[in-house]
């Protein structure tokens, strides 16, 4: 019963706000699947959109080969650049929190879905043609992600955790 309720709460919260997720810390029944999946989605989306708006913005600002700090400040004032930097901060936080609970060798392949999303965005939003080789690449990445996703997310020993009490779970 508790599991069903928290599951529904998770979905509802995800729709209502993508950034402010509820703490489901007491849900011990499915601790990894639900929450980790949400963080992965957040990570991939912020990574793809962040890179996209940053490169778009920097392109409009022009080449940044300058030693004058004023040029960099100007670049940060460009809205696309600012949005990109913000999204990459979201990406950093979600990357770190993902690493706090699952293996690095799980995180890296699974989050490479962002390459697929970038390619698909080029095809459908920017109307760039995706070549046959690129479709093959997308398929191969998805196959690899599928394989890794079917492993246990966490196998690393808890050696580091004993040194410091867990400061995030209790609230």
């Amino acid at each position, binding site marked *: 019963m508790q599991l069903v309720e928290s599951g529904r709460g998770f979905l509802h919260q995800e729709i209502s706000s993508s950034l402010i997720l509820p703490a489901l810390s007491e849900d011990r029944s499915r601790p990894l699947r639900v929450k980790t999946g949400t963080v992965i989605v957040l990570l991939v989306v912020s990574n793809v959109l962040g890179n996209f708006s940053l490169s778009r913005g920097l392109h409009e600002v022009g080449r940044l080969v300058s030693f004058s700090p004023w040029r960099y400040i100007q670049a940060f004032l460009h809205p696309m650049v600012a949005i990109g930097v913000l999204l990459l901060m979201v990406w950093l936080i979600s990357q770190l929190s993902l690493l706090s609970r699952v293996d*690095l060798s799980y995180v890296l392949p699974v989050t490479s879905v962002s390459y697929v999303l970038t390619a698909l965005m080029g095809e459908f939003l920017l109307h760039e043609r995706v070549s046959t*080789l690129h479709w093959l690449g997308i398929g191969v*990445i998805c196959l*690899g992600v599928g394989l*890794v996703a079917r492993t246990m997310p966490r196998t690393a020993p808890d050696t*580091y955790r004993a040194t*410091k009490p867990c400061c*995030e*779970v209790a609230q």
Partner: protein
Amino acid sequence: MKWLLIAMIVIPGTIADVLNTMGMKRNGEVSDFRPRALLRLISSLIRNPYIVIGVPAMAVSFFALMALLSIANLSFAVPATAFSYVLETALAKYILKERIGWRRWAGASLVGCGVLLLAT
């Protein structure tokens, strides 16, 4: 210059991932994403020696990638990052003591190959 940038992408990037994983495993599981909890998380991370080295190393790798992309093609830049999937899986096994079965090895290799294909 190009090869220097490749080294500046791969080496700091790899070090960053390993250190960040160590630092975050030491920090404990992050499960609260409310703003106040995130601020508390950040304040504990800036006192975490692994993260203090890891995140700047990540930034070096990121800006080196940006710089490389501004002077070279994607097809020159990406193979190195594709190779790092297998390299970091090996480091995860030997340094982070993660248990890596055939699915993880095959998955990391497939992802690397797929990234190579996307760069063609």
